[in-house]
């Protein structure tokens, strides 16, 4: 998981010819986590080059970069949470629906009147609490109800969006909480608050996954749940915590979407589950669990949103974009497998 892995893997083969050593060193670095990110950086740089070549200054412009980042922020926060769940050996198909439900619940007339009477943060707390609640239910069903994650979250996908439709009566709910809108519309030193939130979530996510007991246990639970259990980790409790964490991320994303659209709606967040899973997987997190990288996920999100931006700048259709996205996923995963195999030998 660090430079040491690479050197350790290279060291035992004594005295290869110079060219071989260089090649080995290269594959060794590529095989390490840092190397996987190098691959993603290269991909992102290539995409940006395409953007600059095809759209010139329109692409390489501060405003355009901020546009990309704002677009990346909402799905990025969900993807960071998704990285935890997938690293812990799970999957969550309900994130889009949870975003919708949180956005609706946080913008009901009741919530808004509380927000206006007390403080606008009531709206934020409602969204986070609803997200966390959905996460607890997901995690509880999976860990204690022993329902396969795919099925449990599929059920949540249907139920949460349905509940969002009932709560909102399928109408778009408009936010009239001035304090809320003012706060999230602002920029700090030219950087929009939404982007700052994404950056903070990503950094906190990285620290938690790589530097805390919780993160280490996530790797253990995802890598081998039985071994983790026999090592004394409370796997079920940890599973619930993972889904709750993702639920909170969905709540944050809902707040961001409310701020961006000044609305809550049962149609928010459609297909976010697929976008998030795709970003996590091309980032290098193993879908079967046990290996995960927040940095990779962030690159994954940026690659997809930059792609979308380049297509928009060139007036290309969403359909062509979907085809390109599919191709990127396949290439990224194939490449990943290749590198993983080299890493083993």
């Amino acid at each position, binding site marked *: *998981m*660090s430079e*040491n*892995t690479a050197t*350790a*893997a290279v*060291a*035992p083969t004594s005295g290869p010819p110079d060219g071989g050593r260089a090649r080995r060193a290269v594959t060794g670095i590529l095989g390490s986590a840092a190397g996987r990110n190098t691959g993603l950086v290269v991909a992102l740089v290539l995409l940006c080059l395409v953007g600059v070549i095809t759209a010139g200054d329109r692409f390489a412009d501060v405003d355009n970069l901020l546009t990309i980042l704002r677009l990346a922020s909402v799905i990025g926060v969900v993807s960071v949470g998704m990285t935890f769940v997938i690293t812990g050996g799970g999957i969550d198909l309900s994130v889009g629906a949870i975003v919708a439900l949180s956005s609706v619940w946080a913008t009901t007339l009741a919530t808004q009147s509380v927000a206006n009477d007390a403080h606008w943060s009531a709206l934020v707390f409602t969204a986070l609490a609803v997200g966390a609640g959905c996460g607890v239910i997901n995690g509880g069903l999976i860990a204690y109800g022993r329902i396969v994650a795919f099925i449990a979250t599929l059920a949540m996908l249907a139920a949460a969006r349905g509940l969002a439709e009932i709560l909102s009566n399928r109408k778009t709910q408009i936010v009239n909480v001035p304090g809320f809108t003012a706060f999230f519309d602002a920029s700090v030193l030219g950087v929009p608050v939404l982007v700052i939130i994404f950056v903070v979530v990503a950094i906190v996510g990285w*620290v938690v996954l790589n*530097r*805390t*007991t*919780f*993160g*280490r*246990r996530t*790797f*253990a639970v995802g*890598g*081998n749940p*039985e*071994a*983790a*259990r*026999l*090592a*004394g*980790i*409370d796997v079920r409790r940890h599973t619930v915590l993972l889904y709750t964490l993702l639920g909170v991320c969905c709540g944050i994303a809902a707040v961001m979407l409310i701020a961006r659209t000044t609305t809550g709606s049962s149609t928010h967040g459609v297909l976010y589950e697929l976008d998030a899973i795709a970003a996590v997987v091309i980032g290098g997190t193993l879908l079967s669990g*046990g*290996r995960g990288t927040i940095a990779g996920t962030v690159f994954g999100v940026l690659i997809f949103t930059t792609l979308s931006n380049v297509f928009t700048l060139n007036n290309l259709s969403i359909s062509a974009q979907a085809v390109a996205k599919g191709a990127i996923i396949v290439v990224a995963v194939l490449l990943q497998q290749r590198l993983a195999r080299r890493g*083993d030998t």
Partner: protein
Amino acid sequence: MTSSGTPLLSVRGVVKRFPGVTALGGVDFDVRAGEVHCLLGQNGAGKSTLIKVLAGAHRPDEGELRWQGEVVSFDNPTDAMRTGVAAIYQELDLVAGLSVADNVFLGHEPATAGFTRRAEVRRRTRALLERLGHPDIPADRDAGRLSAANQQIVSMARALSRDGRLLIMDEPSAVLDQDEVRTLFRVIRELTAQGVAVVYISHRMEEIREIGDRVTVLKDGRTVATGLPAREVRTADLIKLMTGRDLEYAFPGREPLDPTAPVVLTVRGLAASGRFSGVDLTVRAGEVVGLAGLVGSGRSEILEAVYGARKPSAGTVEVDGKRLRRGSVGAAVRAGVGLCPEERKSQGLLLDQAVYRNITVSTLPAFARFGFLDSGAERVRARELTTALDVRPPGVDRAVRTLSGGNQQKVVLARWLLRECRVLLLDEPTRGVDVGARSEIYELIRDLAERGVAVVVVSSDVEEVLGLSDRVLVVREGRVVHEGPAQEIDESRVLDLVMGGTAA
């Protein structure tokens, strides 16, 4: 029963090596048509590997197989079946959800233009079941709903459906009760009367005497005796053949146990329904207690229950006089209990993760401040331990997967060393560990005991149990049938007890 002339199958000088281990080091024997040929050997003697070689699941590295005098080589189980060799494994491999008939013809369904001729499948299945003396098994029943005994019959029908001439049965009686065993023997006798040969693997002397014609004994991957008459040979001789020492493991010497050492682990009346019952066990600080028994005797389950990984139906576990919450691994670990599980790879290790992470996984809070880990400190401690245990190759950032079995086991041990646990439960500590590393692990276990840890060792290797332990418990069919100091019992007596025989 035996006929002269060319043997149906002859095995000559078969060698099979796995990385770091030679599983078969030269096996020779013949199987004649119409005989029941028993294979005998301790766990780890190479029986399972041999079965897989015969059934085409492994290719031998050296040696040859001859089928009716012709040299044959099997690339895969289908090849073997086509020739007429079929194995019936202990873990029955029927597909639950498919009917009996579908299971019997799975993979070679009689079909016209892709459509299975269902009537023919059923008719031929019925005929096969009749031939096996079990016309009572409905061909349309879901195979998953049959009893273990009937599933075995269906597996045999499957072998015969491919015109099997040689059936290999791996401890078929392990999952059967007495009546079912009797029925199985009747079926085997009928088959052999029809000229089918059976290679029969079992630990149970009385079964070998009853059904077997000839016996081949394996030890450490080699044939040590072959063609012995099953009914005449003395049990004592067989046991001596199985255990006779070609390879010595150096068991560390031990200090006499301090009789005043405090009792650390107390187990009273522990039971798990259907697995074991009435288990009492006390272990003092510095004591090593061995549990001897066959696979399936309940010995591993006892360890799991003590550790809280399996919820007991009755009984209590106390560590240092404090009762543990039932069925809670967390409680056991907090009280200072550690377990090195039987299936090291699937239960013990995070294979793709670094050595140091595997070592610290049970002790994370000790390296954390407010939840933040000091991975530098983790690596330092892990490095100290791996150096002390001589884990090779060194390097705590290397993935555990890249280590050999013995070094992987050392990593698991290091985890509990780091935790400074009071009670260490070891399930098959040397399985898959090569000879050289075994001595080191024995040394380590002894070391731990001398530091005051209470150790419980489970092993199928009787020699290992006796060599390591101060005290030995023998488990058979979920009950402790013997308890006493290790010096007062010898290997053949233990073997006799675990197999339930009455050899002198």
